[in-house]
């Protein structure tokens, strides 16, 4: 019952337009612009190039779910994108700490953006992509909370020859069998999360346990379930039951009764977004969490806030980022401070991911010194290291996966919380390089550049 919204960030005053116009005239006379024009002439038209980057500004399309099961994470992603684009256009200190290559805007051009609701549906996400390309000549499209939409837009990106940066997407397929030349992912594989979390679970809970899985019925759910199963085998853990539920389930009672009757010791909940909130709350109602230990391989933003610290205490989870990492990483502190100043709350990992994707994209363009998509892709593929909010990271050329650490966190007891948002303690920040699977582990075969 929801419609697609396309809110352009186009509140441009007449004064700003005149200033922009003057800027174009001045820019046309500047030597840098002449070089760029010459470069544009060297490269054939491709996707939205050179049309999308010939004016004083460039356009970025943000397609995230603002309605449905994944809306809360979608809204947090938007906050991260907006902060990043603001910082990019201002040439903020944080952006330059991430990469000294980043200046103001990208190659001197202001970044503008539009937001569309993807409803976490692949069809809608692909339509949004198409509209951003045809109506706005977007030079990059970003965003997803479901891997189904990320995978669909990977294909769209290759077809449209426009760079796509998935938002949240934990499926092994996103940079595995559905990888794309035009797509670069910040999140780790579900398999990487499983590899980091499983040893923690085995050492904390013990060997030879029986597991009940709560699995959402699409690419992310199935791949993460298989990954967890594989790594938990090392501790002699076996699967008691796998309860697969459709995305957007509101009543988990029948699944939970199956879990309650399965004889499992541990519940591994792979559900995400509102599905995660509802399934955890209802598991608590059914008394399951008193008998079985809960574990979360891919923690959903705001889970602890919504289900309460009381329920999440002691729960081990893998995640991308948690705000208390600011004690360890100076850039995390800078990012959190900027986020707090703008939104009066702490960021979730979705906002951090969105911010980093924009920063790393700007870094790649500055290194490419060109908007020509194959040049930008090659700059990404060169694997240059950037400083992130969780330490040094880089993109792998072979599958366009960011090599980054996995954060293992544990829910704090309500009595141990130092503030209302202090839900987790950081157990371990597992470095990405030794953890991440090989680029060909999930069947990635890249398409061409042109």
């Amino acid at each position: 019952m929801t419609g697609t919204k396309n809110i352009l960030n186009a509140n441009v005053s007449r004064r700003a337009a005149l200033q922009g116009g003057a800027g174009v005239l001045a820019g046309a006379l500047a030597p840098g612009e002449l070089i760029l024009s010459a470069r544009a002439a060297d490269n054939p038209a491709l996707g939205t190039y050179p049309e999308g980057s010939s004016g004083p500004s460039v356009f970025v399309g943000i397609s995230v779910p603002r309605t449905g099961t994944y809306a809360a994470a979608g809204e947090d992603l938007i906050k991260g994108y907006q902060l990043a684009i603001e910082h990019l256009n201002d040439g903020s200190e944080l952006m330059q700490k991430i990469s000294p290559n980043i200046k103001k805007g990208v190659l001197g051009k202001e970044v503008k953006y539009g937001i569309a609701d993807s409803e976490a549906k692949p069809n809608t996400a692909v339509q949004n992509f198409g509209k951003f390309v045809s109506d706005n000549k977007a030079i990059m499209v970003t965003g997803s909370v479901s891997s189904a939409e990320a995978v669909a837009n990977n294909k769209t990106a290759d077809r449209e020859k426009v760079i796509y940066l998935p938002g949240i997407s934990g499926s092994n397929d996103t940079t595995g069998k559905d990888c794309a030349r035009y797509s670069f992912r910040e999140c780790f594989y579900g398999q990487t999360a499983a590899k980091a979390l499983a040893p923690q679970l085995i050492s904390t809970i013990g060997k030879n346990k029986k597991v009940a899985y709560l699995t959402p019925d699409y690419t992310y759910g199935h791949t993460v379930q298989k990954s967890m199963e594989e790594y938990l085998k090392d501790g002699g853990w076996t699967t008691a039951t796998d309860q697969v539920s459709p995305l957007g389930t509101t009543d988990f009672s029948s699944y939970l009764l199956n879990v309650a009757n399965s004889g499992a010791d541990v519940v591994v909940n792979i559900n995400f977004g509102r599905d995660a909130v509802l399934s955890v709350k209802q598991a608590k109602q059914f008394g399951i969490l008193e008998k079985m230990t809960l574990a979360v391989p891919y923690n959903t933003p705001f889970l602890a806030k919504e289900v309460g610290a009381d329920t999440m205490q002691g729960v081990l989870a893998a995640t991308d980022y948690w705000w208390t990492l600011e004690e360890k990483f100076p850039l995390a502190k800078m990012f959190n401070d900027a986020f707090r100043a703008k939104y009066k709350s702490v960021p979730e990992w979705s906002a951090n991911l969105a911010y980093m994707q924009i920063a790393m994209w700007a870094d790649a363009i500055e290194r490419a010194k060109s908007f020509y998509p194959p040049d930008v892709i090659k700059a990404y593929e060169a694997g240059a290291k950037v400083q992130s909010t969780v330490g040094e990271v880089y993109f792998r050329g072979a599958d366009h996966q960011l090599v980054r650490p996995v954060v293992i966190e544990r829910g704090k007891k309500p009595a141990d919380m130092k503030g209302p948002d202090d839900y987790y303690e950081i157990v371990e920040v597992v470095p990405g390089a030794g953890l991440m699977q090989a680029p060909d582990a999930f069947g990635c075969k890249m398409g061409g550049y042109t």
Partner: protein
Amino acid sequence: MLSWPNFLAQTFNGLVLGALLALLSSGLTIIYGTLGVLNLAHGAMFMVGGYAGVVAYQYTGSYLVAVAAGAGFVLLLGIAMEQIVIRHFYDRPDEDQILVTFGLGIVYVEVVRFLFGSLSQSMPPPSWAAGITSLGFMIYPTYRLAVVGIVALALLVLYLVLYRSRLGMIVRAGIEDSVMVDSLGINIMRVFMVVFGIGSMAAGFAGIVNVPIAPITPDIGESILVEAFVVVVIGGVGSFPGAILGGLIAGEILSLTSMIDPSYSQVMLFAVMTLVLMLRPHGLLGSQGRA
């Protein structure tokens, strides 16, 4: 998970699931049966009832006040909606009615999203129904058991109003021949307003009663509306007893299928609906034309 204890547990759970679906669907079917309006905003009204109740709970901390506020607010919303919009659509084609109620549903969802954001809102069960009850063959959340009683009571009240009261008599007479009822000096339009209000209230009531089970978000009504339609189709469009029977059948299908393969429970629901439509096009308890 095929085992006797699980079978008993799932059968029982199907009953509980079905009870809520029955209540929600009864509102939908009363409005359609009486006014001939397919109210696609019914799911949104389920959601509005939940939010109105949660707000009342936040101010008072009382479950009973929350339920009264949720149901009462949606009753008033329903009456206002009927007075301002719906009554102008009684004589217009079905497509117009569908579009206007669909549109109103979007408006309700977006207004709630604007006011409350996308994070879920919840409310604990009342203290007398908190915790878990052991039924011997299974343990079950006490509140879900209480919901069966609450819903049964609500359905009984609805039944008495519709079948055992003067209002109910006028409503049923109005369905048969509204001109005749009008010429007897009864204001049939006022009766229609009341019926729309009561039907909406059933959605609002179900909405707030469901909050302690499943926290609400602005679009929670979407998927539930689809299930309510399936219930109405299985039970017979416009039939009040049909909605109850359909609700219970749907609850059992969802619960029992999940025991064999959870990923097929929704598929089975639609498969059974298709089967019913093939064998009894007017639903199990429906009759030709409006009930």
